[in-house]
């Protein structure tokens, strides 16, 4: 309960606005700039992939060539020159190290600076008594370390990089990769299918409750590099896993593209809790630089009584454009989406979710909190579709927007489509500002304005933040304060 107060205190003590903006000086091996079939082949070769994987990539690439970049979203951005980017960048330390002792010290140092524990006895920075967290650390295009693999293997849990999974567990990858987000799904997902480099793979066997949080930490380091990670999580019958994802990037003047695909599959009675704290470099206060975060995240609740819960805290990126979704196929399956999106200065975000109700008695819940400050513009876009057969389906959606200052904007666009009379769909939305009376009340109790705003905004987001695992919640609350620095007064 005291975590938010702590966050507020931290706000003041952190001097710079984006503390992850440093660059790791490490030798990087690049594939040549540009995108063509040879690059696709090269990536596949670097990853020592079997033929079927290469074929799938090429199919995607050829399809991508026929597609048009979408233009319907609210944030518009300058044309991306897909030939002027690197699609593969990896630290030049040879093969993936067998143990942490072999990891390049510069990388270890980087993750230490980012507060990510790569030594198994350590826990996330600064949180005492936090449970164990297994980490897959992805640096540019490769996974550099995965911790606790052995311990997890004892229970039959597979937690490794997707590249490794393609080699070691081809039957699972073949069965599920592209089964939720087909290679032809959309422009950026198709691009990702062609050139994805690394990301995490998780398989939780039947009846297993994963004994620790799994997490992947994505770091873009190299210049002019796109990051195309691919994550696939399968929760077999009756299993449970909580997965966390964090992202940062150095402060650079040019924009970098991050086009990830995440696929989740839950079978009967299984549950996946997927949490994201996205803190890619947002660009400077004039909108120069920053990451284009164009991501496709989708979950298939295939089994009956299965559940997927997305929680996202989006504070970074120049442009965020993503809709983590749930396809509720199994009867009684449940989809949840909890989101906090903060846009400050020149940041843009168009984010929300899709809940597709197919099975009977499926339930979904959407809680979205959008905060806009500075010159930022934010859109919540969400679809709730109740298909004909989804008898007894329920949806509840609440989306609240908070505007700080008079140069920002908030846009709420829910699409509600119901084809079943026994389904109940309920949507509520509000837009408001921080009340003068609230602010004065805090000031009268001795807080300064930034503290007061961080406190009030954390309160506004509370319903979402409290769904995060504890160690992430603390980090997220700090971020809320930091992201809004300079937005008042």
């Amino acid at each position, binding site marked *: *309960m*005291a975590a*938010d*107060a*702590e966050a*507020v*205190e931290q706000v003041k003590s952190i001097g710079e606005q984006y503390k992850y903006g440093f660059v790791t000086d490490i030798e990087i091996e690049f594939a040549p700039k540009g995108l063509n079939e040879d690059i696709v082949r090269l990536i596949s070769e670097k990853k020592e992939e079997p033929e079927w994987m290469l074929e799938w990539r090429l199919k995607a690439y050829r399809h991508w060539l026929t597609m048009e970049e979408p233009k319907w979203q609210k944030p518009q951005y300058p044309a991306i020159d897909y030939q002027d980017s690197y699609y593969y960048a990896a630290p030049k330390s040879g093969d993936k190290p067998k143990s942490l002792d072999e990891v390049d010290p510069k990388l270890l140092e980087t993750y230490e600076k980012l507060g990510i524990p790569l030594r198994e006895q350590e826990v996330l920075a600064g949180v005492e008594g936090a449970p164990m967290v297994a980490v897959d650390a992805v640096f540019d295009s490769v996974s550099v370390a995965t911790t606790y693999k052995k311990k997890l293997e004892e229970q039959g849990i597979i937690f490794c990089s997707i590249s490794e999974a393609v080699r070691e567990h081809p039957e699972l990858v073949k069965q599920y990769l592209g089964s939720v987000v087909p290679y032809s799904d959309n422009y950026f997902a198709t691009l990702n299918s062609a050139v994805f480099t690394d990301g995490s793979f998780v398989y939780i066997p039947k009846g297993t409750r994963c004994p620790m949080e799994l997490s992947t930490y994505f770091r873009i380091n190299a210049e002019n590099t796109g990051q195309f990670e691919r994550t696939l999580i399968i929760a077999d019958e009756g299993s449970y896993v909580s997965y966390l994802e964090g992202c940062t990037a150095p402060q650079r003047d040019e924009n970098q593209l991050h086009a990830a695909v995440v696929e989740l599959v839950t079978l009967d009675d299984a549950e996946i809790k997927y949490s994201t704290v996205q803190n890619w470099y947002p660009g400077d206060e004039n909108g120069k630089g920053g990451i284009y975060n164009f991501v496709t995240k989708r979950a298939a609740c295939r089994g009956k009584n299965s559940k997927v819960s997305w929680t996202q805290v989006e504070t970074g990126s120049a442009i965020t454009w993503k809709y983590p979704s749930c396809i509720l196929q199994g009867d009684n399956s449940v989809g949840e989406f909890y989101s906090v999106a903060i846009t400050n200065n020149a940041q843009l975000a168009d984010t929300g979710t899709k809940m597709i109700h197919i099975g009977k008695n499926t339930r979904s819940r959407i809680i979205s909190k959008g905060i806009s400050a500075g010159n930022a513009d934010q859109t919540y876009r969400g679809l709730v579709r109740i298909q004909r057969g989804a008898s007894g389906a329920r949806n509840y959606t609440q989306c609240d927007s908070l505007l700080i200052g008079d140069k920002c904007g908030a846009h709420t666009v829910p699409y509600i489509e119901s084809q079943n009379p026994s389904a109940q769909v309920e949507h509520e939305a509000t837009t408001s500002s921080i*009340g*003068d*009376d*609230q602010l*004065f*009340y*805090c*000031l*009268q*109790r*001795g*807080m*300064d*304005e930034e*503290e*007061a705003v961080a*406190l*009030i905004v*954390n*309160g*506004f*987001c*509370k*319903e979402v933040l409290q769904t995060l695992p504890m160690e992430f919640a603390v980090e997220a609350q700090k971020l809320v304060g930091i992201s809004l620095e300079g937005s008042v007064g």
Partner: protein
Amino acid sequence: MALLEIRNLHATVDDKPIINGLDLTIGGGEVHAIMGPNGSGKSTLSYVLSGRAGYEVTEGEVLFDGKNLLEMEADERAREGVFLAFQYPVEIPGVTGITFLRTAVNAVRQHHGEAPFDAMDFVKFVREKAAGLNVSDDMLKRAVNTGFSGGEKKRMEILQMAALDPKLAILDETDSGLDIDALKVVADGVNAMRTKERGLLVITHYQRLLDYIVPDHVHVLAKGRIVKSGGKELALELEESGYAEFLEDAA
């Protein structure tokens, strides 16, 4: 040196004069009551002293502990020791009472060069303060004032006062919306905080509150000025005679 010295204070709201030449001096350990009819400027005075935006001082000066109070921002005044118990305490959804209080108390402590409380110590600290005020842990875990009854809100105000330990506390119509039992709890809480150093400014429309928080001085405010001052018996007089005579006098 007096704790608070108000000299010839004039203040406007939306360019409308509300306070028109007010003088008042409060010494350490003194309890002053300001009474007056609706619209006489009572609440405005509390906002002017606490530095709310939109309340403009056009003339006069206010010294607090010898410092120019009017030069300070609202939060600075709070950290220097001016506390306002609001007539209508504000709801802050999602922020628990304990978090709110700890943030405030630590801001004040750091201002005075003291170490901030950590979470555990703070809980102990607040529980002690809360015990006498009938404020339960449950109330502290709920969002600030959200869904509180009138009595709960006022008890929460007094708890904040106790926790922040101000030099000067201004109670703005603290009796409004309270039944007699709730009023007693609140008054006991306030009385427990009467010390030789602390000044209290009790703003009220009715004499009732002053049966429980007995003032040293009573002032009648009408049309933005103090028109009569006296001892605690003045409050009883007012109860008998009402404010009519002062409205005419001041006109």
